[in-house]
């Protein structure tokens, strides 16, 4: 964080940044928001909704007809749904930021293993209330989303779902899958609402209660990827490769389902699509286009590293070369965070102050 602050403060002290001094016209600045909503966000939420629905169907089929085949279908549907979620989880603004939806979908990080304890307790006690999706929104967020569903489908005892006698666990999984779908459906609907958040975001003005200025609208556009890369680094990569050098595969998101690296790959791909669909590169002044090229370059590097990392996280951490790839990915996420959060932000003339950064 220190070097981040240095660059910004140096920029601000040198007068590079000043509030309300966008370097492009208002219309040109808002266009990337419209582009990204139509070209990436709305389709991504559609896909998320669809895959969440399919996961619900697959888990219900498993409950109705427990067998190896239906269990494998349910597990595959979970994977598809989680990877679709990976494409939208960084859009932490508007619909996803409301009503604890993000936390309900993904209770993570869970440093103290709360989800595991609560899910295991519900299974051990045969708590019937968790088998009805209608009850879940009122329960702990740790029981409502992907981390709970992953344990139910992949955790200890999950193989028994293929046989008789696991109806409670299966009913619980079906309720969670239905809950996820309900949230996904609401998110999709809200992003497609003509008078909803998409319209509010892309039409700033004095009468707009959420985005009063073009600066606020564009600021949101560039802050989302910046925060996303910080989250990938701090939540997804750093905990499994701590400073003490002892790898911790069980601190990885979705290690049980073997999805850790696929999830991260999906996140990077989504962020790249977000950037490309926005057309943000075209808004930058000619002599600053190198920033867009740098972003593409770093995305390519990340793509290469991630393609080598597509294996269970335990295998990644047991292989020196792959650990190097993982460390490189951390550097790349830092680099991309800076490109969005500092370089492009400054180029567009957005005010990012020393005091307003990183709230405290």
């Amino acid at each position, binding site marked *: 964080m*220190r070097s981040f*602050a*240095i660059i910004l*403060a*140096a920029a*601000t*002290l*040198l007068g590079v*940044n*000043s*509030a309300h001094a966008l370097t492009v016209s208002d219309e040109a600045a808002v266009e990337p928001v419209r582009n990204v909503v139509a070209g990436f966000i709305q389709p991504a939420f559609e896909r998320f909704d669809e895959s969440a629905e399919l996961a619900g169907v697959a888990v219900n089929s498993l409950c109705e007809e427990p067998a190896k085949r239906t269990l494998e279908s349910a597990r595959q549907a979970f994977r598809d749904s989680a990877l679709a979620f990976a494409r939208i989880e960084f859009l932490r603004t508007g619909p996803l*930021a*409301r009503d*604890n939806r993000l*936390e*309900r979908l993904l*209770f993570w*990080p869970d*440093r*103290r293993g709360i989800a595991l304890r609560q899910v295991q307790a519900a299974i051990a006690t045969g708590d019937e209330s968790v088998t009805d999706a209608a009850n879940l929104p009122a329960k702990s*967020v740790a029981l409502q989303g992907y981390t709970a569903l992953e344990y139910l489908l992949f955790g200890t005892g999950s193989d028994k779902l293929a046989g008789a006698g696991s109806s409670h666990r299966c009913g619980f999984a079906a309720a969670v899958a239905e809950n996820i779908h309900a949230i996904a459906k609401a998110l999709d609907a809200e992003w497609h609402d003509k008078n909803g958040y998409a319209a509010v975001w892309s039409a700033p003005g004095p009468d707009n*209660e*959420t985005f*009063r200025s073009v600066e606020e609208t564009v600021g949101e556009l560039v802050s989302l990827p910046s925060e996303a890369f*910080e*989250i990938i*680094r*701090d*939540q997804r990569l*750093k*905990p499994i490769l*701590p400073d003490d050098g002892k790898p911790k595969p069980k601190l990885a998101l979705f290690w049980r389902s073997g999805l850790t690296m696929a999830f991260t790959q999906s996140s990077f791909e989504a962020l790249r699509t977000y950037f490309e669909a926005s057309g943000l590169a075209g808004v930058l002044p000619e002599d600053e286009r190198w920033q867009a090229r740098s972003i593409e370059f770093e995305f390519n590097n990340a793509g290469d590293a991630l393609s080598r990392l597509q294996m269970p996280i335990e295998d990644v951490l047991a292989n020196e070369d792959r650990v190097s790839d993982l460390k490189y990915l951390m550097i790349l996420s830092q680099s991309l965070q800076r490109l969005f959060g500092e370089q492009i932000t400054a180029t567009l003339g957005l*005010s990012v*102050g*020393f*005091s*307003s*950064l*990183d*709230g*405290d």
Partner: protein
Amino acid sequence: MQLFSPTGLIERRTLLRAAGGAFLAGLAPRAAEALTETDAVFASAYFDREGQYGVALLTECGEIVHRYVLPERGHDAVFDPTGRTLVVFARRPGTFAAVIDTANAATPVVFHAPEGRHFYGHGRFSADGRLLYVTENDYDNARGAIGIYDATDGFRRIGEFSSGGIGPHDMTILPGARTMLIANGGLETHPDYGRTILNLATMKPNLALVDLRDGSIMATHELPHEMHKLSIRHLSMTADGTVWFACQDQGDIHELFPLAGSVSPQGELALLDIPEEDLRRLHGYIGSVVVNERAGSVVFTSPQGNVAYEIDRESRAVRARHDLVDVCGAAARGDGFFLSTGQGMLDGRQTSLAWDNHIVRRPA
């Protein structure tokens, strides 16, 4: 206790060199005179062009009396009751506190949070100046603590008590010197996860009243449940013991919850009814709150909203609004406020330093 210089004791001239040539070059004759003749009135952490963090002593008019280099970014600072010793705290999740003897401009010395802890950036001296209380994160156990350091013995850590919540940030000692009010921001964080908030869905900030004689929690004040994502961070107290508090909204900032309020000496919590338009301008974030006893007002600054609001303490209405980019630091001065910004503005003048979130006033 150890010097932050890895080479051990360093002489003042070395320290000045470390502060960068800009420091010496920037000392105009008048400032040099101020260095020896004018008492410092304010202190604030900063960040300079060379990428160096520090803390500066300032005159009533905002002239820089002296600058001290810090090992990392500072946050708030506190003077002891005599006004001679200044302690600057690392910004979270930093682990150092720098002790400065302002009487002889000696090299700052630092002490650190114990293993498994980091500081949150705020602290307070006991009324007699013998003890220093510091907000700490016991991060492996996800609990807030107040570390007790002996100011008469090299700031040796001699004990601690629970802050009564998670994520203690600012604190204040109430009149009578026996009780402390602590702003527990409610955010669980752990260095393993950077700045990630680990308990966003369940966070429960509070104001905890602690008996300083035994560290027991006497009372806790919580906001209504729908406001549980309002992280209570900063406090400022009036002479009668009313404590004004300011929050940072960790939820959807467009929901527009009140971001400030007060707790009376009788323990009654009252939220500040800020007009919707003004609330919107704060962007869910108040970075600093400061009472002006003489003016009967309190100021709330929002670097995110580029605005400072001066509120009349009696009527609780907005008295004045100051539009200032990246404003956060504030201190009472006369009938008004001395303000600073992260973009270098200090009391209306552009300086070459980026000022951090808080300004502390030296006891008279």
